[in-house]
């Protein structure tokens, strides 16, 4: 039978993070007879194989995750553009990107801290309302007032 060294006896307690340390030392050691190696490797492969997990084939969560990162990069790129060539196009793009980034970010916060069917539904509805109003307000500001880029410039010239 495979003998296993318990995690607690292997992990070093209270290690100093600033000192350079080999990552291998923090991992649990498994002492295993040679002939079992093949099966363990297979197990590791099965564990990491995405298609075998989950009851449904939905990639919704994964796609959402990717979309969040794509939006973040987009928003990052909008910064210099807003500074170098301000105007209505970047104003509206910023309004959309900021609102969506905030909406998804707050969504993650809700997922982390709000639990229970009804509470989750109510919080999501509230968030949706907030984001809608935010986007509407920003668009209105862009349309009938100075616009986001100009507003930041004016604020800073104070």
């Amino acid at each position, binding site marked *: 039978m495979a003998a*296993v060294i318990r995690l607690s006896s292997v992990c070093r307690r209270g290690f100093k993070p600033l000192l350079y340390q080999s990552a291998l030392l923090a991992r649990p050691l498994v002492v295993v007879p040679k002939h079992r190696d093949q099966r*363990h490797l297979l197990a590791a492969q099965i564990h990491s194989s995405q298609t075998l997990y989950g009851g449904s084939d939905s990639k919704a969560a994964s796609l959402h995750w990717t979309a969040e990162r794509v939006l973040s990069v987009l928003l990052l790129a909008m910064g210099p553009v807003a500074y170098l060539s301000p105007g209505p196009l970047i104003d509206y793009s910023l309004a959309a990107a*900021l609102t969506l980034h905030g909406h998804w970010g707050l969504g993650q916060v809700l997922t982390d801290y709000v639990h229970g069917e009804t509470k989750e539904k109510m919080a999501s509805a509230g968030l949706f309302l907030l984001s809608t109003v935010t986007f509407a307000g920003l668009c209105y500001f862009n349309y009938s007032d100075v616009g986001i880029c100009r507003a930041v410039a004016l604020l800073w010239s104070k």
Partner: protein
Amino acid sequence: LATFARQGVCLSRPHHNLLYRHAAPMGTTAKQEMNKFWDKNAKLNRPMSPHITIYKWSVPMMMSITHRGTGVGLSGAISAFALAALVLPGNYPYYLDLLHSLSIGPYLLGLTKFGLAFSVSYHTYNGIRHLFWDVGKGFKIPEVYRSGYIVIGLSLITSVALALL
């Protein structure tokens, strides 16, 4: 054995090898499992185990919650601004002049600018740090601390520079 340790697989009971050979996919999603956890514990009226009150705080922990805090704060500020734009009469320059006339004083002004600039800078720089993690880079503990200190340093420098503009 060396390659195996590197994969970091830990088995607590030997006969699990046999189960993995004929592994069947789980019938529930991660979200369902998490909901089951919370439903069960709420129904049993269990108190929450102490965590942030007893666990020793670390720089990565503080940076993580600060990232969340700045994100929520900035989002709130943007929403408040948007709401104000919809509800308040008058336009933006009018309210700016109103603020001007309050003669707030350079230090308070500078402090507010610094606060705003720091939130945006920190959230942006730490956001980039997150994106590096998202592509799988920089997870070793020394790297986490190193990138963390770089983010803090850059944020402070940028915010001071912006506040002094």
